[in-house]
Structure formats: C-alpha cells, structure tokens
C-alpha cells in the first residue's frame, strides 16, 4: 500500500505543528472561537452534542495493521475506549479533549494517517470499493487512482473554498460497492476496446435533495483523469450556487443547468486544462501503483476449510454470510461484522481493533479495509486459515454471521452524538437487530439492507436502503419516516416514502410488519426483499404498515 515519502511526512508534521500552535492560541485567548472554528474544522475537529469529535480519514478504506493499532491507541489513550467507523470510510472519536487533539494527530501522522479535509467545503476523503484488489469481478485496482486524487486534492489551492463539500467515489468493478451514483463525482472503471478507462458520473448525492448521478462521460482515458476532474470542479466552482447552502452541491448545479450544458462547459475547459498537465501526474501515478502490488498469495490445500465447513454449523453459517469471492479460488474476502446484535453499528473497541490488526497480520497479508457499510474487511485470507480466524474472531465478539442481513444496519450517530440531528438512530438500529435476533428470522429473511439517519443530511444513507429510516422531530417528539426500494449498487435508486412517520416506540413493530408482509409476498425464498418490492410495488407494504388507514378506506 501507499507509503509516505519525505515530502508527505514533512507536510503532515508541519501541518500538525501549525494546528498545535492554533490550539494553544485558542486556549490562551489570542484566538476567538470565530477565528478558531474554521481552523479546527480544517483538521477534522468538530464540536458535537456532548463533546468534541475528531474525524480521521481512512483513505479509500485501506489500512495496515500498524495503522489499525494506532486507531486503537487513540481510542484507549485519548477517548473512551472505542471508535466509530462511518459510511465515508472515516473513523470518528466522540470524546477527545481540545488539548489532546494535537497529540492525537501526531500519533496518526507516525503511521501516515491524518484528519485533513475530513470537514469543510473541500474535496473530502476519496472513498472506494472495500473489496479493491481482491474482488473476482474487478477490472483494475481503483486505489492508485484514489491515492492520485488524494494527493492532487489535498491543499489544492483552487478547491479549498468550494461552495460546499465535495465527495468522490471510485470503483474498479462492474458491481458497484462504492455507491458511485450517490456522490458528487462517481468513477467506474469500464473497458473500451480492451483498454480500461472511467465512466464519469456527476451530480449524485443524498441529503436534503437525494439524486442519482448522471453520466457526463461514458469513457475517459485513464491519463486524462486529473485534468477532467479539475474541469468538472472548475465548472462547479463557477456555476455552483453560493447564495443558498442547500442548493450549493453540484447535484443542484447539474439539475438546474442540465447535464448537457455542464458537459459542454466541462469539455471546453478540459481542452485547455489538459495542456497544463505535462505528464508529471502520470509519472506519479506509476510510482503510486508500485505501492499497490498485490500480496504474493500463498498456495496450500483446502482440507481444513472443507472439513470445518462440513462439521461445524456455526462456522458454515458464518462462512456462507460473511465471505465474498476472491479472485484467487483458494482465498476468500472476509467481512468482519462490527454489528453484533444490540451493539452500536460501526463501533469497535480498542481491544477489537487490536485483535483485527493481529489477525490481519497472521492471516491477511497485513491488510484491512473499512467498508461504507461500517464493517471491517480482511481482503485476502487463505481458505485453510478460515477456521482458525473464525475461532479467534469469536473470542473478541467479532464473529457475528450477519453481513448483508437485517441486523447489518448502517446507522449514523444521530441525536446521541450529532449536533445536527433531529432524532436518534443508534437505539433504533440496536432494537431492530435485537428484535430479529429474538425472532430468529434473520437468515430466513435473507439479504436486506436497513439504513438509518438521524436527520435529512442522510449520513446513514437511508435513501438508498432497501428499507430506509429517517428520524425527524415532530413537535418535540422523535418520529421516523420509512422509505422503501432504495438501492446503493449499480442499479442505484432512491427509496419512496411510505406515508406518515412512526413514533419511537412504533418504529420497530412497523419494520416487523414490513418483514412479515415480505415473507408472505415473496414468490420463493430466493426472492429478496428488494426484488419482491420491485415486483409487487408499494401498496401491499403500505397496507401492512398502515392497517388502520386501510380499514377506513374499506
């Protein structure tokens, strides 16, 4: 993976020293909060409901064991013993003290991690497929491009004060695990005449106005990536609305001006910008690529794996749910669920982080990933190691066999931590998971994504959940709106609202009614919730959700 060169290391050291001085000056009174706030936000430090929150970027979701151990160290030394992995491949610490943050940033810098551009109206952490370089369906590893974009966008003078935050996601596979259609720019590797390039998608996004991105270029040669991105951003910087924060995202620019106009303007600028690139970026890309050579996968037979699979139903259930196909048949991609029933989605303790770091070293070629689904992935594990890995995971409460199932819920921090929230999300997720555990229905229900946000900003991706839940404040009480039919993959779709929302103590029973309806409506155990919804439409689910309203009509 990418290793910092001397320039990167010096850059981070200088940046941290600068911030340390700024914190000092805030504390001794030479800076007011108005002066300090933009500076702390530039370094990922927010003020939340109960405390500060530090957001650390995990570039394209990739980590090695040392980095994971440093994340554990931060949790233990300067926080309350845990961290929260988010949908944007970041980790958030909920309880740091202002004075400690410079030390936290220095500890991160030692392993090449930082919190730069994890906030503010800049290009945020570039996210990517968490199965990159391991997935069977992959054309090319997208991470060298993500790293190139990171280096280009970090402190890029033209893009530090955009109209709004800007999010780029990139995938190298035909199956989209990076939600590219819900980003300001989505990049998807495609092949033309045997040569890989990018399909470029713009103007997607969730939040207050959820929109699916539109294709602005169906094929962009790899070498043109940066000049093209610069052109899109330049057009956005020019046309993007600054009069109204809610209309400032590029999705509104695309909506208001039309994709054709935007495309023309981008192409025009692209002609000019391309000339200003002298090829240095391609040299850099080649250097970056050298850091992403795949591990030398070992050989060996699968006997222990097959024996355990036959003999141990617990292992089998975990293997069936939490493994994905690796490009090498003897290896598997392991998703470690950090969604044990009743736990906070995305939270891992320092001990769990260390355990995962150790296991990655022992069994996973020293590589870990964080998914936008708030789980941790060991991308390369030889199948013969799976029984031992599974046993070790069990010891740390990390062997829950629920990946892709009803309790594998994405939930934002909501009103339990977030200053912008209108309702809680975490306890709703915890109760749904616990309820379906009690009912023992989880595996019977099969693939189902529930996503919950505590306000319209949609950090929990509720718009693209098969079942989306949005927490609102209705006259001083928590109220939850349900959407159905959202989809975060290559067939991306925004969910449709079912009708009036539900009170806090009604939301879990409402979800239960949806699931019961699905079980009676599906034409076979193979038909997923989303497929059933697409076949039968909203009405039968509405009838299940609002039985009283149906009675009145009848």
């Amino acid at each position, binding site marked *: 993976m990418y290793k910092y060169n001397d320039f990167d290391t010096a850059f981070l050291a200088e940046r941290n020293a600068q911030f340390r001085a700024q914190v000092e000056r*805030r*504390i001794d*009174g030479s800076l*007011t*909060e108005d002066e300090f706030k933009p500076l702390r936000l530039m370094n990922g430090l927010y*003020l*939340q*409901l*109960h*405390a*500060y929150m530090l957001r650390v970027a995990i570039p394209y979701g990739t980590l090695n064991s040392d980095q994971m151990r440093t994340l554990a160290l931060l949790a233990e030394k300067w926080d*309350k013993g845990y961290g929260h992995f988010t949908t944007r491949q970041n980790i958030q610490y*909920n*309880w*740091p*003290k*202002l*004075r400690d943050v410079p030390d936290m940033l220095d500890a991160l810098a030692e392993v090449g991690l930082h919190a730069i551009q994890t906030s503010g109206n800049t290009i945020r952490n570039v996210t990517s497929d968490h199965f990159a370089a391991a997935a069977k369906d992959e054309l090319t590893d997208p991470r060298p491009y993500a790293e190139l974009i990171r280096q280009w966008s970090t402190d890029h003078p033209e893009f530090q004060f955009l109209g709004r935050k800007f999010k780029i996601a990139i995938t190298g596979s035909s199956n989209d695990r990076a939600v590219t259609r819900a980003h300001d720019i989505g990049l998807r590797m495609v092949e033309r005449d045997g040569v890989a390039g990018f399909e470029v998608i713009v103007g997607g996004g969730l939040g207050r106005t959820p929109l699916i991105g539109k294709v602005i270029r169906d094929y962009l040669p790899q070498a043109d990536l940066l000049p093209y991105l610069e052109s899109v951003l330049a057009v956005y910087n020019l046309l993007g609305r600054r009069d109204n924060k809610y209309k400032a995202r590029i999705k509104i620019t695309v909506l208001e001006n039309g994709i054709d106009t935007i495309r023309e303007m981008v192409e025009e600028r692209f002609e000019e910008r391309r000339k200003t690139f002298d090829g240095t970026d391609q040299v850099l890309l080649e250097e970056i690529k050298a850091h992403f050579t795949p591990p030398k996968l070992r050989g060996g037979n699968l006997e222990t794996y097959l024996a355990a699979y036959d003999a141990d139903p617990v292992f089998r259930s975990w293997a069936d749910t939490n493994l994905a196909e690796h490009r090498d048949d003897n290896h598997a991609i392991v998703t470690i669920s950090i969604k044990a029933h009743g736990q*906070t989605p995305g*939270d891992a303790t320092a001990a769990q982080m260390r355990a995962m770091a150790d296991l990655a070293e022992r069994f996973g070629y020293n590589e870990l990933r964080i998914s936008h689904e708030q789980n941790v992935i060991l991308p390369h594990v030889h199948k013969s190691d799976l029984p031992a890995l599974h046993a070790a995971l069990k010891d740390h409460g990390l062997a829950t066999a629920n990946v892709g199932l009803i309790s594998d819920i994405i939930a934002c921090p909501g*009103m*339990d*931590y977030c200053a912008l929230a209108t309702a*809680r999300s*975490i*306890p709703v997720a*915890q109760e749904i998971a616990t309820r379906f555990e009690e009912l023992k229905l989880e595996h019977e229900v099969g693939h189902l994504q529930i996503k919950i946000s505590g306000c319209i900003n949609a950090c929990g991706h509720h718009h693209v959940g098969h079942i989306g839940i949005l927490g609102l*404040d209705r006259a*001083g*009480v*928590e109220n939850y709106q349900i959407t159905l039919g959202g989809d975060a993959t290559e067939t991306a779709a925004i969910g449709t609202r079912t009708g009036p929302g539900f009170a806090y103590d009604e939301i879990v029973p409402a979800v239960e009614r949806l699931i019961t309806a699905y079980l009676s409506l599906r034409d076979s155990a193979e038909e997923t919730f989303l497929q059933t919804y697409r076949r039968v439409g909203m009405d039968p689910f509405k009838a299940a959700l609002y039985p009283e309203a149906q009675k009145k009509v009848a």
Partner: protein
Amino acid sequence: MPRPFTPKIITANDLLEGDVIYFTDTNGWSRELKEAELIEDEAEAQLRLLEAEKDAQHVVGIYLTDAKAGADGPEPTHFREDFRRTGPSNYRHGKQEAAANV
C-alpha cells in the same frame, strides 16, 4: 401574533472538555442542568445572554433554550436538551458516567 415567551436557560459547551454546561444565577457555569438559572422574562433573557457571552473565551456555542421549573431546579422541555443533560443512549458515557462515578 407573537408567541408568548416561555422560560429559558442558557447553555453552551466547555472550551477545553467540550461538555455541556449551564449558566447559573451567580454568573458561573455548572455541569448540572438543575443548577441553571431559569429565566422567566424575555428582556432579562437577552441581558443574561449578553452576560454569559462575556465568557466566550472559555465556553463555546452559547444559546438560550427552553426549560421548565421542576421540583429540583430546571428541567428540559425538549428531548434534545434531555440527551444533552444526560449523555448518549448507547453507553453510560457523558454526564451519566460522571454521575455514576460519584
């Protein structure tokens, strides 16, 4: 028609710790909502806010918010302030942790 004034308290976050604090009638700050000053008059509320803001070097995000009189001092009227008073629901962290350690 202007809305009738409802009683208020002044709240903020501590600069160093980030935790929730409340303005008291002796111009200090308390970690306990029940020790906050409950302000019953609209004009007085604005004056008290100005007084609290003098401390902007040590506290962050000062604002007025609704509260009501309770048997043991002011109580929140909205769930947001209720959570700020106690801490998150998933762990006994924040103020509820401090209370548990007493």
